[in-house]
């Protein structure tokens, strides 16, 4: 009975790897496994290599494992591509369409190779070659010992939109796959999965958790321009926002989208934009404007590989320093980096509170891996009722605040740097706002003393903000001399690395940054001081998180720091981290 299984389905885009992966993910969830998916698809619609990895585990998992237990290859080149992720005991099921022997360079010792005429069966017996992927799903279902009743249910849920005929055809294809295994018993290794009761866990992609968090957090306006890997937010909220009186807009460009959101926020709504690097680059003038006008705004930023267009569908953490410093001039901002489904949900909801309470832009920084892959979570771990809505110093009657020349003091100087927030249409009074340096009433002035007090007013928010933001999460092992620091999606593989090292008696503690900015200098310094060696795990070349850590600690600790970076566009595997640490400890 296996408690952890990883399957990769590979072919060219259009082969149906994606659907097979989705169906498999649902199946695993239904037999009570925690699931994580890793989509690796090209920036192309059809014809280029693509693959989809599904991992199921009896324990919560947030990343892929080191090796695949199964590779379903719809073409021979896919075997070559993914050979390095197969190990002794792995199974490679491939479409034997040309009947040729596999060449030696595709054969790895200890791997079971099972050629199956997937295409041929699909074409001859089901009348549709395309459905070979569901034959493959049947093969896996039978090997894993999943009940037919469960596969039928998953197929119904996945295909009912397409009509009864499609559902029946898919069921038939799955059955064909099952028969293949039964008839060829002995060619397949024993790989029955343990069956748990499905507690009805949530299985959704990161962007879905963010969208749900936004709704729960009272977001009533989204403006976005389609861009990978954040488009699903626009798609999700376009469908949902209308249902509770809000609007989700597909703007004409990225610049328009941030300015629309700023307008909606000025009008009093909780507003958000969703984008990625190339889009955020265009949004920076708006970011800076939100900073000067102190307009609450939530920016969802899913990083992808750059520079420029880079690898649009691949993951990275290359924009940490960029988003900390993006925008001209100086102004406070908050950057949150969720790592788990519940954080994606709650931190998004909470971002709107921070944005309104401090009247600043708040950035939810994720990456393609978190944004577009699916994760399971126990339902009770995301509870919309636990989401508070705090609107800060929102003024509803103009008579409550002083005026100048008849205009309300929207930018009144207060000790905590946070002025009364006025929206148009409130009882009594009007106000002004501008991207120019302005006086308390919101009208441009170049007066030197005013400039100094306004800068101090805005920047003084930071010291109050620091006390309120989510602190780093510490995963501590007793007497650990080694520490890991990371932020965001590297969480899963790091946790697994720690477990594996622990088994060999190597204790490692882990400090996970949740608030990237303002950078949690005190916590980081304390963590580093306690350790003999620190590994900073991040998905970029330069070591951007390392830069921030080194900036926060005292010089004498710098020689403890080692970077573990990956910038191939693919997420870390535990082994990537483990090997580097072991090497360093030799």
């Amino acid at each position, binding site marked *: 009975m296996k408690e952890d299984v990883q399957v990769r389905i590979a072919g060219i885009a259009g082969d149906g790897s994606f659907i097979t992966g989705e169906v498999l993910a649902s199946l695993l969830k239904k037999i009570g496994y925690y699931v994580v998916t890793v989509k690796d698809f090209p920036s192309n619609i059809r014809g280029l290599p693509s693959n989809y990895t599904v991992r199921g585990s009896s324990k919560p998992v947030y990343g892929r494992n080191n090796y695949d237990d199964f590779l379903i290859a719809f073409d021979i080149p896919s075997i070559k591509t993914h050979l390095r992720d197969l190990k002794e005991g792995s199974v490679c099921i491939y479409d034997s369409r040309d009947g040729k022997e596999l060449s030696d360079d595709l054969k790895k010792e200890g791997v079971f190779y099972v050629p199956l005429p997937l295409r041929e069966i699909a074409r001859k017996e089901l009348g549709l070659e395309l459905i070979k992927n569901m034959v493959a799903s049947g093969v896996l279902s039978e090997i894993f010992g999943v009940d037919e009743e469960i596969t039928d249910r998953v197929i119904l849920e996945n295909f009912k939109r397409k009509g009864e005929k499609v559902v029946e055809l898919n069921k038939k294809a799955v059955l064909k796959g099952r028969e293949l295994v039964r008839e060829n018993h002995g060619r397949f290794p024993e790989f029955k999965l343990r069956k748990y009761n499905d507690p009805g866990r*949530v299985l959704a992609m990161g962007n879905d958790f963010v969208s749900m968090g936004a709704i*729960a957090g009272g977001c009533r306006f989204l403006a976005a321009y389609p861009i990978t890997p954040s488009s699903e937010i626009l798609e999700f909220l376009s469908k949902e926002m209308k*249902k*509770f009186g809000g609007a989700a807009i597909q703007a004409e460009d990225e610049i328009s989208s941030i300015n629309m959101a700023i*307008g909606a926020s000025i009008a009093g709504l909780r507003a958000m934009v969703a984008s990625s690097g190339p889009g955020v680059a265009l949004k920076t003038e708006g970011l800076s*404007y939100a900073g000067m006008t102190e307009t609450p705004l939530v920016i969802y930023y899913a990083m992808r590989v750059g520079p420029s267009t880079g690898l649009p569908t691949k993951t990275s953490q290359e924009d940490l320093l960029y988003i900390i410093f993006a925008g001209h001039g100086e102004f406070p901002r908050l950057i949150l980096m969720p790592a788990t489904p519940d954080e994606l949900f709650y931190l998004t909801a909470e971002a709107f509170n921070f944005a309104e309470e401090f009247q600043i832009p708040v950035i939810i920084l994720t990456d393609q891996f978190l944004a577009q892959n699916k994760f399971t979570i126990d339902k009770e771990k995301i509870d919309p009722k636990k989401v508070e809505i705090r609107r800060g110093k929102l003024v509803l009657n103009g008579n409550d605040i002083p005026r100048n020349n008849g205009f309300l003091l929207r930018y009144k100087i207060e000790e905590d740097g946070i002025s009364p927030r006025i929206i*148009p249409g409130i009882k009594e009074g009007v106000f*002004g706002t501008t991207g120019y340096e302005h006086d308390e009433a919101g009208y441009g002035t170049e007066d030197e003393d005013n400039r100094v007090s306004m800068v101090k007013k805005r920047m003084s928010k930071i010291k109050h903000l620091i006390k309120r933001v989510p602190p780093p999460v510490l995963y501590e092992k007793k007497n650990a001399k080694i520490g890991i620091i990371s932020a965001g999606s590297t969480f899963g593989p790091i946790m697994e690395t720690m477990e594996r090292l622990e088994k060999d008696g190597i204790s490692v503690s882990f400090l996970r940054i949740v608030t990237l900015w303002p950078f949690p200098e005190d916590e980081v310094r304390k963590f580093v001081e306690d350790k003999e060696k620190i590994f900073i795990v991040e998905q970029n070349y330069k070591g951007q998180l390392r830069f921030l850590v080194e900036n926060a600690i005292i010089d004498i600790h710098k020689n403890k720091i080692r970077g573990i970076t990956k910038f191939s566009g693919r997420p870390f595997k535990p082994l990537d981290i483990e090997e580097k640490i072991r090497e360093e400890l030799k």
Partner: protein
Amino acid sequence: MSEILSEVKVRTPKDYEGYKKPTWCPGCGDFSILSSLKKVAAEIGLDPVKTVVVSGIGCSGKSYAFFYANGVHTLHGRVLPVATGIKLGNPELFVIGLSGDGDALAIGGNHFIHTARRNVNIKLIIMNNQIYGLTKGQFSPTSNHGFVTVSSPYGSVEFPVDPVILALASGASFVARAFSGEPNSLTEIIKEAFLHKGFSVIDVLSPCVTYNKVNTYDWFRENIEFLPNGHDKENLTEAFTYATSFKGKIPIGIFYKKERPTYEELILDSSNPCREDLYCGRERVYELIETFSK
């Protein structure tokens, strides 16, 4: 209109005086636009509390400070997206956009096209002086071909964009042109634009007395011609005909006016997001969570 005709105490143009006195050059065409704006506001009883003036960058951008209403001074070219956001955020607000020719048609050209085709209920006044004044005299997208400026020393090789033709082509539901030097017709046109429901564009020829020595008040008086009274404003073809060729002169007047559903009506189904309870989405999130946990 009923929502903006509330019980305001203000009724005379003087009551709409802003936070500051205008800082434009003496003789600037923008003064006339501002005073027409105030006159119209007084006539229709515009409620300043429910009005937002959104301006961009340049001489026109400063207008937000010269009019008594909520004022949002945005970035260069971004008047329309910000105004759209405001209108969608609270459709009960009366939103006036004040842009220059560079603001509306160069850096904001894309937004201009898309706001027009969406028909957001925003009143856009383009203070068109055919030059960049605040940055000291570079050519603008409405400058004439051959126009000599500091950035076109050999004469502009570009041909001007016509805001009226562009607005018509982009689907604006109200399109007009006025001239600062003709305050009566300017006021009438602004009033009609304000009473129109939908995206209203008024291209106002507004001479820059400091940097544009060609398109002066006198030059305009010789080169403009009013559209005939009997012109069928709902006829788009006729509007194009007048806009593209009219006795060899610059036509002034309302070219086109035809109501159709506004963007905010279509997007919001007549609800007002600002009035919604922020907790109201919670129950729906439970339902969504259920759909993901099947």
